[in-house]
Structure formats: structure tokens, C-alpha cells
């Protein structure tokens, strides 16, 4: 079973995405802030990470930077899932190594699941 780490501070979003991914047969780990997200990524080594950018304790950008600089997590694909949509934010996340950048409000849940499957290579 493929393991996905979802770093998101909003519980409602966490719950909906986790359930949708569970239904598709994924194991989902949840982190509600940047610190625990980075820690879980290192200890659990998930197959993919869904990462929000506005997070308590540490921003998603910092987490992404750390993950890509750390040997054991640098190859894990990271999908940024946020409502920030300025071109500067998109460029920064891609430069830091994000696989895909998705603006939450622009996608249905089924689209997110499809993107995850594509990124993880299960489609």
C-alpha cells in the first residue's frame, strides 16, 4: 500500500482528502504543522507528500527546502496544495523542487486524487 503524507493545518481539508485517498487504497499520514510534517517525512519516508504552504510553526516553503536538501527525503515527489496563487509563490515552490503546484480552489477532489495518482505513478 502506497503511503502519502498530507501536511495541512485545516482539519476539514485534511479529512476530505484523506478519505478520498483512503477510498483509492492509499495509506494517509497527517501532519498539522510544518515541524511535524518535516519530521514525519524523515521517519516514515512516504511515497509522496501533499504540502500546504501556509502552516503553523514553519511555512511549507521551509519544509520543502529542508526535504529537498535532506538525503533521505530529496527524491520523494512533493505536490504543493495551497490557495496561494501569485506567480512568485509558484516559481519559488517549483524552484525549491515541488513536482506540481495546485491551487486548491481550482480543483475538484477527484482532480486532486488523479494528480496524486499521476505523481505517484499508479495510474
Amino acid at each position, binding site marked *: 500500500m502506497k503511503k502519502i503524507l498530507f501536511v495541512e493545518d485545516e482539519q476539514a*481539508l485534511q*479529512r*476530505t482528502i484523506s478519505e478520498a485517498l483512503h477510498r483509492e487504497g492509499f495509506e494517509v499520514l497527517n501532519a498539522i504543522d510544518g515541524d511535524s510534517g518535516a519530521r514525519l517525512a524523515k521517519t516514515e519516508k512516504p511515497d509522496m507528500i501533499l504540502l500546504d504552504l501556509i502552516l503553523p510553526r514553519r511555512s511549507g516553503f521551509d519544509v520543502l527546502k529542508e526535504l529537498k536538501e535532506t538525503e533521505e527525503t530529496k527524491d520523494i515527489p512533493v505536490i504543493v496544495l495551497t490557495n496561494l496563487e*501569485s506567480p512568485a509563490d509558484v516559481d519559488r515552490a517549483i524552484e525549491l523542487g515541488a513536482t506540481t503546484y495546485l491551487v*486548491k*480552489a481550482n480543483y*475538484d477532489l477527484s482532480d486532486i486524487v488523479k494528480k496524486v495518482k499521476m505523481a505517484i505513478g499508479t495510474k
Partner: protein
Amino acid sequence: MEQTNEKKLGFLSYLRSELDVVGQCRKIRVPLWQCPRLLFIGMGMVIILAIVFTYFFVVIRTEPEIAALIVMMVAGFLMVQSYLILFATENLAETNRLKNEFINITSHQLRSPLTASKWALELVLESAKDLPPEAQENFRIIEDSNARMGKLVYLLLQVARIEANTLKQHKRDVSFAETVQATVDQNKFFVKASNIELEFIPSKEDFEVNFDPEQLRFIIQEILDNAIRYSGGGKIKISYVRANSNILFEIKDSGVGIPKDEQKNIFQKFYRGSNIYTLSPGGTGLSLFIIKKMLEANGGKIGFKSTTGEGSIFWFTIPLINNSSKKIIQNKNQV
């Protein structure tokens, strides 16, 4: 000739508005004593008066100390006025910063709960097949209302961004043909339900434009949506062709049309024609304002011709990428 007159009138009205200093100050909503434009004029007048006054004073009284004192006093006065201008400018810059911050926060805070409820509903609807039809219908109502609220937030954010000159654009090369086709397909159900005959004539060439794909979809969707909504049945014809170095998109409807005396207001925000409330009471009057700004930000244009009771033709242009196009095989579509 007519165009020259229009340009002259445009220049005169621009000049009149520029010379209306108090009006301009009220427009930016700062007190007159903090209005940079008024303070600047005041400063100029003080300088002229001070020069004239000093000249006459020195002619009458020849003491250099008195002249130096006057110059110092004027310099002091000018310094105070310069500080006020600086203060006002900083105030405006700060207000602008706060406005941008507000837009960003609103964007995030309003959209997050809407996204959460949209996704939660998607999950519910997936497993709602066994529920009674009434319950399913209620969920659909919630879904529609959520979508409408999401759209309203999107429209208001776009307006706020346009006004703050921070309209975001993630430009890339987009196939125009594919975008139009996808939008037409997406609206097939709405077209049928509205008892409209839609004729779509795609070009034999595909064109690539450098545009934000979401915004291009929004533009075509909203123009088509307006045509469907305000047609009240009847016929809609969509086409697009190359026009020199641009792509020209046109949509013709047989709807209610726009009254002649209201046509000048059609691209103003929140404006809605007086004859469309019965056809679509829920509109916001924001789409055409946003569309115009999105197109203009990309070197495009929008316009229309309309006759009350007969219908309207809305058109827009977008510059092509290096005039490039590729042949596609596609026949006339009838929906």
C-alpha cells in the same frame, strides 16, 4: 473624421478631469491638506509668490539680512509642505499595501472553507446513491450554492486585484481551439436545457496564444454563459478566425439585446442591463468588466454590436504567438 473628433473629446475630458484637482483628491479619498496634487500646486504658488515678494521687498528695503530671513522663512514653509506631501504619499503606499494584504488574506480565508465544503460534498455525493431522491436533490442544491459562492468570491477577488493592479497571470502557450471546444462541450447540457440551438464553427487552423489558461477558459465561458442566459431560447453562433496577427473570437446570439443608451456602461463593474433582470436575476455585472481587463492586460480587445430585441454579437481579439497556427481537421459542429 469621426475618430479624430472622438479623440479630441477624449483628450478634452481627460484634461478637464486632470484640472479638477479637488475632484481628483476626493477620488483617492484623502483629506485636502494631505492631497499630494493640491499640496504640489500650493507649493508652486508659494514659490512664485515668494520670488515676487522677495524681489519687491529687496527693491524697497535693501537690507540683505531681511531678504535672507524671508528666504529662510519660505524655505521652512516649503519644507513643512514637502513633509506633508511625503506623509500623504507614504500614507497612500501603506493603504495600498494593506489593501493587497487584505486581498491575499481574503483569498485564502474565504476560499479554504469553500473548498473544504466543496470537497466534503463531493465525498457525500459519491456515496449518496442510496439516499432518497429528495435528499440527493438537497445535496445538489448545497453543491450549486457552494459553486455560486465560490464563483462570487473569485469574481470579487479578480475585481479587487484589478483595482490594486495585481491581477495574477500564469501565462503559458495555450491551444485556443482546445479551450473553446472544451468550454462548448462543458455547456452542452445548459444549452439543451435552455432550449437553444448552438452552432459552433471551429477554425480549420488551431492557434496558440500566450495566456493564463484559467483566465482564457473564464473569458470564453462567461461570454458563452451570457449569450445562453440572455437569449431566452433561440440561436447562438460561435466562431473564431485569424485576423492579421490576432485571433478573432465571435459569439452571436438572438437574445434580448442591449438598449442603445445603456451600451456605453456595459463594461463597467456591477452594471447590468435594465432588460435582463427577468431572464437572469442572479447575475453580478462583474464578468464583462473582468474579461475586458484580462484581455487588455494581454494586448487583446473586446467589443460588441447589439440591437434590442434582435440580439448581440460579442467579439474579442488576442494576439497570436509569432502568428503561428497549425492545421486541424474539424467539421462544423451542431449541438
